[in-house]
Each structure stands twice: as structure tokens, then as C-alpha cells.
């Protein structure tokens, strides 16, 4: 039962991705063609509220449900891994019109071909695990 809250938050995520059309390949194309504000508005609103909220959590040292402090872990410093990895991700994002979350929302919506995309995303992650020691980080 301790997992039920994660299931409900996941359901909310699926509904918001579907109802705001953010899981649509068309919307991702529109974004990369700079032809509407919609996707920028979604990400922008989430980030602005996120920055404010994270600052409040840090300032007042807010704790989580179990009473532990909410901590933010700085990601390791690098440029090359974020730039190259990010670019590879972006190529796939624009091609399939979906990042990992929206992929599974699409599957639930009935687009079963997105299961192929998700399966190969898992294969891509597996491939990264096999070659990571040979990649610049």
C-alpha cells in the first residue's frame, strides 16, 4: 500500500501529459519549429514554479513525509557528457516525438507502436551501460 501514492501521482502525470497534448509528436514538431508558445509555456511555467518552490524548500529546510530533510544533490561537473548525451537524446526526441514519460502515456492512450520506441529506449540504455567506460564524461 505504500506505493499507492506513487501510482496516483503517475496517473496525474499521464493525464496532464495527455490532456495538455504534450505527449503528441505534433506538439514536439511545433516546438522545434518555434511555431507556438504552448510547449514553452508548459516547461516555462513548471520551471518558474520549480525554482521558487525549491528555493523555499532550501530556505525553510522543509522536510519530507518521513521527517527527513529534502536534499538536492549537485550533478557532477562536466560539459561533454551533458552536451553529447543531450544532443543524442534530442535527436531521438524529435524523431519519435516523445521522451520516456510521454512514451508510456501514449501506450496507455492506445498507440501500441510506442511500445517499440520504449523497448528500444531500454536497449539504448543497455548499450550505454556496456560502452560507458569508453565514452568521454
Amino acid at each position, binding site marked *: 500500500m505504500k506505493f499507492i*501514492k506513487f501510482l496516483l501521482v503517475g496517473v496525474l502525470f*499521464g493525464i496532464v501529459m495527455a490532456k495538455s497534448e504534450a505527449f503528441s509528436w505534433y506538439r514536439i514538431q511545433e516546438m522545434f519549429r518555434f511555431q507556438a508558445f504552448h510547449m514553452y509555456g508548459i516547461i516555462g511555467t513548471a520551471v518558474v514554479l520549480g525554482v521558487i518552490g525549491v528555493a523555499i524548500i532550501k530556505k525553510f529546510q522543509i522536510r519530507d513525509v518521513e521527517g527527513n530533510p529534502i536534499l538536492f544533490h549537485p550533478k557532477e561537473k562536466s560539459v561533454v557528457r*551533458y552536451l553529447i548525451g543531450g544532443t543524442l537524446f534530442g535527436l531521438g526526441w524529435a524523431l519519435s516525438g516523445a521522451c520516456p514519460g510521454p512514451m508510456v502515456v501514449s501506450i496507455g492512450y*492506445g498507440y501500441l507502436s510506442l511500445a517499440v520506441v520504449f523497448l528500444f529506449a531500454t536497449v539504448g540504455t543497455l548499450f550505454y551501460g556496456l560502452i560507458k567506460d569508453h565514452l568521454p564524461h
Partner: protein
Amino acid sequence: MIEFISQPWSWWVSGTVISAIMFLLLFFGKSFGFSSNLRTICAMSGAGSISKFFDFNWKTQVWNLVFLAGAIIGGFISKEFLSTGEAVQISEATIRDLQALGFSKPVSVQPDELFSLEAMFTMKGFSMLAIGGFLVGLGSRYAGGCTSGHAISGISDLQVPSMIAVVGFFSGGLIMTWLIYPLIF
């Protein structure tokens, strides 16, 4: 109420709910990052025996798989109960651009040219699904996160690595859209 919810949601409602999801997960002692699930699935499948990268206690990540299951259910609920069945409301300019590439005017939320089962069983169609997915999976792990982990969670914490990753996300997306799409469609 249902009629109201069934309309497409505006950007500010969506952005607000997404940040609320991030804060709920933080409040539950976790963090918002969806692509970690791909690594967890590899680990669960026994990939720890071929790479140390997958040799970790994946049971600590089950909560995120439950979140993933919820996302699938959320997609299903949206389709079955909260949808008016309308086509996606994209701009006329995008419709024209996509028609020039051979995509017909949207009639639903995803193009049949890419995602119908007929397209999936063609060599070209399957290849595009597979390559797109592969690049997302490889790139997100190399960059240490996807849109949720970097663009939302990381930038909310003003982390420079996440900002660099998002520059990469857009570089790749623009290259694919403007340089590679005209070659493959």
C-alpha cells in the same frame, strides 16, 4: 466538471501540475526523473551480470516503476473518459510545414504516418521507431537524465549541468527537425 476537464488543458495548467508532481515526489522523499526507469528495467532483467552500471539494488527504484504504471493508466483514462476525440490543436504554420513533408492534417494526437500499426510493420516505419527510441535511451543515460530529470528537476535547482543538457536536447531536436527530416521524409 467532466466536460471542463475533457477540453485540451492550457499550458499554464499543465506547467503548474507538472511542478506539483515534482514537489509531491520530493515531499515523498523521492525525485522526479523518468528515464531512470530504463536503467532499472535493465537491472531487473539481469543486466548487472554484463555491466556494473546495472549492478545496484533496483528494489529501491520500484516506486518509480509504480509511477510509470500510473502514467500508462493516466493515458488510458484520458483516452477513455476525458477525451473529446478531437485532433491536436497545433498551429496552421506547423500543419503546412508537415504537409510539405508528406504528413496529412492531424486527425488525432499522433500521426498515422509514423505510429499506426501499418506503419510499424514497414521497414522504414519500424526503423524510425527503433532508432528514435534507441537515441532517447542512450542519450538520456549518457546525459544523466531526460526532460523530467534535467529540464524540470535540475533547472528548478538552478544546476548548470542540467542547463547544458537542455542545450543539448534542443541542439539535437533542431538538427533532427531542420536537417534530417527533409532527408528522410
